[in-house]
């Protein structure tokens, strides 16, 4: 079927303001939105710019607003979006070109929550063992691919430019609830402030936007609790 793509385009070096450009592509209903974008780039307009790497929902490169909602282009089928697809870059990032955005600050905030295991105990002879139950505690938040769909869907993040955002909190959750980790105090110091978990207003946009189906709002609420009680 013929699918019409309305794509928001913007080249800061040439264009005065962003504008929409239309393309028509022949696609099947089990094709993905990314197939449509590739078709346009390869056969109709080589200047259309977007990110994609693995094309299988693992690398998190192609998060964008598809029909008004944040999704991965490689995980969204044409039959889910219909014959008219409106594509815009993620909200809240400076646009580098078309659908490519500058995620510098996103990764800065990600790094600020110490997204790695901190444990200064001498390493045991084999490995740091953990019970399956203790591992299950943070299983959900290990699935994050850092695509930024949650953070850029968050109304609090739109209005508060110093809010860490859901993705960084999810990453912090993954280590705060890990029994092998020892940096809970440092992480909570960063997260318990006004720019941390308390800027979350429980609007659930993050949970709905997550392409990995992480229960983001739930993870944030659990970190809120940890911040309140001083530990997991």
């Amino acid at each position, binding site marked *: 079927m013929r699918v019409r793509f309305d794509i928001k385009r913007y080249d800061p070096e040439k264009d005065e303001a962003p504008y929409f450009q239309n393309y028509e592509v022949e696609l099947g209903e089990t094709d993905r939105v990314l197939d449509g974008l590739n078709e346009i780039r390869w056969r109709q307009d080589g200047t259309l710019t977007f990110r994609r790497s693995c094309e299988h929902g693992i690398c998190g490169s192609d998060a964008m607003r598809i029909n008004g909602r944040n999704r991965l282009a490689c995980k969204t089928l044409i039959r889910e979006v219909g014959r008219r697809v409106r594509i815009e870059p993620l*909200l809240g*990032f400076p646009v580098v070109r078309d659908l490519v955005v500058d995620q510098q600050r996103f990764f800065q905030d990600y790094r600020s929550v110490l997204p790695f295991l901190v444990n200064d105990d001498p390493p045991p002879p084999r490995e740091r063992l953990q019970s399956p139950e203790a591992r299950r505690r943070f299983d959900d938040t290990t699935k994050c691919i850092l695509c930024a769909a949650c953070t850029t869907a968050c109304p609090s993040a739109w209005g508060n430019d110093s809010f860490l955002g859901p993705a960084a909190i999810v990453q912090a959750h993954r280590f705060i609830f890990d029994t092998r980790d020892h940096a809970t105090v440092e992480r909570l110091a960063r997260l318990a402030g006004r720019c941390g978990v308390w800027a979350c*207003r429980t609007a659930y946009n993050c949970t709905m936007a997550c392409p990995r189906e992480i229960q983001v709002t*739930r993870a944030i*609420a659990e970190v809120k609790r940890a911040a309140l009680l001083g530990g997991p």
Partner: protein
Amino acid sequence: MLERTSFREGLRYRGGSSMWAWMLHRITGLGVLLFLSIHILETFTLSFGPDFYNNTMELYNTIFFRVAEIGLLFAVLYHAINGIRITIQDFWPALWRYERALVWAGFVILIFVFIPLAVWGLLPVFRGEL
């Protein structure tokens, strides 16, 4: 962490029921704040003597202000009920699964409390006393 996004762009995002509930929460919050400022101003008129104050208070006995008071009632009730809902969801994170149902439950409670009170408050208008 992001650049500020304009209100218009935010409205264009297709969020779920909780996003709209949050937006209404903000609007009703501002509404209550507006009332509070009017209330402070109106009390302040007492310093110009009892007549001035009484005349100001007469304003409340007009249809416009009575309807606005019903709006205030809605704003306070919604803000309170929705606030309690958010608090419950924050304290029991596992409730995330029932997010939509809880938003609607809040609205049902709101309607049951609001409608009778609103009808009662508007009785003088219906009777033509204002």
